């Protein structure tokens, strides 16, 4: 079936006229609608019947993504299509403009098949904190698809989309990609415009890409990585020179502090096997130290929550979003609208963020966390002088059982492998590298130097070839 192929394969088939764009869109749409009740990967999904409409006319034009159905995470603004952030707060919100990334997709001829489910405002790691229910892992429906971009990951893994946009603040693209057995890429902070991405933590938020192969990630990245003046934190600085990553002599750093963090044995085994594979092919493995990694999770939750508390303060029920029905006065309207509109996890983060910025506490929480972040960046800079990429696990375990009760602190601590590169703005990719005994996929994380996105993708692609197996199919 057409929904089983990668975007790169489909584009080749389109060129050779082995299929038409309409056929692809039709096939994937039917699949998406069929599996929606199972995976719940979409919040808004275009109906299969819709595919006959005139918007599909572009499908057979020869643009890069003509005829390719792309799913977009529901915290990325789409003009005229409701964008909910999986929150009751925005359940009826329809943006009057397109995010820059979406604009680029449309210009490339992509078919936006739907808006994917996620953790509310991207806060979570199992896509189970949203207003629209949890996303199930297509590989084992007792398990979560991961989060917060679980819907995007499940859609790609389950054949309900060919490509997807996700967002990654502390691992939200890499972790669900790892748990769903697909490839996920979080580019350097600043490489992709955030305009239209509904902010969770501005200094950490990034739009990332998900697909069934690394070449699919490159395809998306090249379309969207264009300078956008609307986002002044967007630099699009490319280190284009010498970005080919020959596996022979490629210096791969293994961070001691990551090795010390407790990952499940099946995860460690799969990741180590992947690293060994590269070593056997000529890569040089180096042990490196990034001492502040041990502080990264603390600092991350302080900074991300602080920014979230401020970013989410605008939801007051005045200009858009949920407004409570009964209230005594202005203040009461604000409090009720916000308390009804936000879920438990979002409220927790807003409370944490408000606390770490409040008078008397900002010095010992927020300011110290900012200093830790600067220190972490310096340490990574050092490390990238002696190695080209870093290899690490993505997540300490291969699967998250849906409905499992875990304390917040434990859930947050599990972000240890993804959060450090988030804090330093480094590009990182997750590529499937093995499966555990239950058949749940495990991802290998490769982290590159800031703006060395191209080299990182090259390295990831080499690994994918070395690995050989086809992990991208449900």
């Amino acid at each position, binding site marked *: 079936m057409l929904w089983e192929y990668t975007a790169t394969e489909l584009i080749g088939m389109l060129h050779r006229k082995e299929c038409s764009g309409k056929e692809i869109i039709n096939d994937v749409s039917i699949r998406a609608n069929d599996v929606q009740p199972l995976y719940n990967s979409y919040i808004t999904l275009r109906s299969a019947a819709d595919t006959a409409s005139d918007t599909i006319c572009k499908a057979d034009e020869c643009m890069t993504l003509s005829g390719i159905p792309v799913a977009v995470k529901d915290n*990325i*603004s789409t003009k005229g299509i409701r*964008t909910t*952030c999986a929150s009751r707060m*925005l359940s009826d*919100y329809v*943006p*009057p*403009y397109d*995010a820059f990334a979406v604009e680029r997709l449309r210009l490339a001829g992509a078919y936006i098949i739907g808006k994917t489910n996620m953790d509310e405002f991207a806060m979570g790691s199992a896509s189970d904190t949203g207003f629209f229910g949890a996303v199930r892992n297509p590989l084992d429906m007792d398990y979560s698809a991961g989060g917060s971009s679980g819907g995007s990951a499940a859609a790609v893994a389950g054949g309900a989309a060919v490509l997807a946009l996700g967002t990654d603040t502390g691992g939200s693209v890499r972790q669900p990609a790892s748990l769903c057995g697909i490839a996920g890429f979080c580019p350097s902070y600043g490489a992709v415009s*955030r*305009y*239209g*991405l*509904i*902010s969770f*933590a*501005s*200094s950490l938020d990034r739009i990332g890409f998900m697909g069934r192969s690394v070449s699919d990630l490159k395809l998306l990245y090249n379309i969207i990585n264009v300078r956008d*003046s*609307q*986002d*002044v*934190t967007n630099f699009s600085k490319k280190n284009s020179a010498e970005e080919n990553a020959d596996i022979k002599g490629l210096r791969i750093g293994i961070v001691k502090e990551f090795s010390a963090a407790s990952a499940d044995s099946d995860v460690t085994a799969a990741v180590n096997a992947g690293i060994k594979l590269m070593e056997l092919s000529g890569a040089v493995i180096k042990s490196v130290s990034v001492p502040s990694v041990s502080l990264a999770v603390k600092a991350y939750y302080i900074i991300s929550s*602080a*920014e979230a*508390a*401020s970013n989410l*303060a*605008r939801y*007051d029920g*005045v*200009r*858009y979003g949920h407004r409570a029905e009964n209230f005594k006065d*202005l203040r009461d309207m*604000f409090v009720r609208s916000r308390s009804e509109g936000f879920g438990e996890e979002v409220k927790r983060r807003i409370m944490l963020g*408000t606390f770490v*910025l*409040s*008078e008397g506490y*900002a010095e010992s929480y*927020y300011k110290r966390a*900012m200093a830790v972040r600067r220190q972490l960046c310096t340490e990574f800079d050092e490390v990238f002088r002696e190695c080209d990429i870093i290899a690490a696990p993505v997540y300490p375990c291969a699967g998250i059982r849906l409905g499992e009760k875990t304390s917040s602190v434990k859930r947050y601590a599990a972000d240890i492998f993804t959060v450090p590169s988030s804090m330093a703005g480094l590009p990182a990719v997750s590529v499937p590298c093995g499966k555990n005994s239950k058949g749940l996929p495990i991802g290998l994380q490769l982290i590159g130097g800031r703006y060395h996105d191209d080299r990182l993708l090259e390295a990831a692609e080499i690994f994918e070839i070395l690995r050989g197996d086809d992990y991208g199919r449900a």
Partner: protein
Amino acid sequence: MAELESVIGLEVHAELSTSTKIFCGCRNVFGEAPNTQVCPVCLGLPGTLPRLNRKVCDYAVKIGHALNCHINPVSRMDRKNYFYPDLPKAYQISQSDIPICGKGSIDIISDGKIRTVGITRIHIEEDAGKLLHDDGYDGTLCDYNRCGVPLIEIVTEPDMRSSAEAHAFLELIRSILRYIDISDCKMQEGSIRCDVNVSVHEKGSPYGERCELKNVNSFSAAVRGIEYEIKRQTGIISSGGTVERETRRWDDKKGISTLMRNKENAQDYRFFPEPDLGAVVFDEEHIKRLKEEIPELPDRKMIRYVKDHGMKEAEAFVIADSREKSRLYDECVSTGRCQQKTAANFIVGEITKYMNDTGKSLSETALNAEGLVSLCVAYEKGTVSSSGAKKVLGELIEHGGNVDDIINDLGVAQNSDAAFIDSLAEEVIAANERSVKDYRNGKKNAIGHLVGQAMKLSMGRADPQMLRKALENKLDTEE
């Protein structure tokens, strides 16, 4: 008890006259229909991002130069968080730790004394929207047109000691903002507003706890607010009490201040660096270039006019306050052909009156320095009387032209021919026996009547000074 002294510091907010808002391309205009000058960015729609207007930064550097401030080559934007329906993002993008301008100072003249007022800082920020009330609707309406209008905030040190000094400072700031052309300073449009900090202490002991007055919407309200607050705090101290640190709302209609917030429930704004924006960076060259664009400013001019030209403060301010008037004055004086006082009198008097009456600026009139100097010369020589000069000036303003020609055309030349004056005096003495008698009997005032009669005879062209002298001569000698 030792003598009490009051200490005043000010925070002045002025809207900048850029063409667009601070973070988006919406027009920076006043008085449009509600919510017509808004876009996704200034409405704070989810996913939108701010982009800082270069002109806002340049304007801040210029006012920094004008107030002799240190300019920070690198500064940072911060978020000030609070919930209010006029603030769409529930935070105001402002500057907290590293503003564009650091310390500076400016000299004011008040009551004949020069006082140096320290500037603590100047930063840029965005304005909030407006809340409206409408009889037909029982809630509050939000108009966001003003959201994102660029503001500068000038914070002073607690260096003023009276409401008069505060007033002089405010007048001077407004004048400077207009000079360097970065703000319209239209009070009625709310484009310049201030918060006032007042404390009272015994002379010789440390400053007292200060109270901040909010909602001060005019300079005269600032004066009234300060005076009220000084009286209130003096009352507390005199009766043995202590003033608490408070934020108070000034009600100008009622002429009282009421408690808004005390120390316990002070606002916690949770400032932190704005992650959606980068650092504001100026290179030294650019900072210098902006400095070169600053003309001599009213504070310097005021001091020059008072100290060097012997003007009174009020006159000096009328001229110094306006860039056009002071330019005209300085040009006239620089010719060296007329006296400073003559030029100053015409500008402070007739010219200012004309500008106020018509609302016109000098550039909208035909008057230039050459014309005014020629008029001053003619007046000083006695070629034209003061009433004649007013007519000539009117003509110069309306149509311009050569002063001598205008004097002739209007027939206002003053006759100072001695023979003519003499004959007039004789004629009047002959025709006014009664006044002559009064004068000679010691009622010296009677001379006024005689001068008046003679002027009438001359159709106003005789030089009244000469006439008076001629009359006195004749009356005193020909007894």
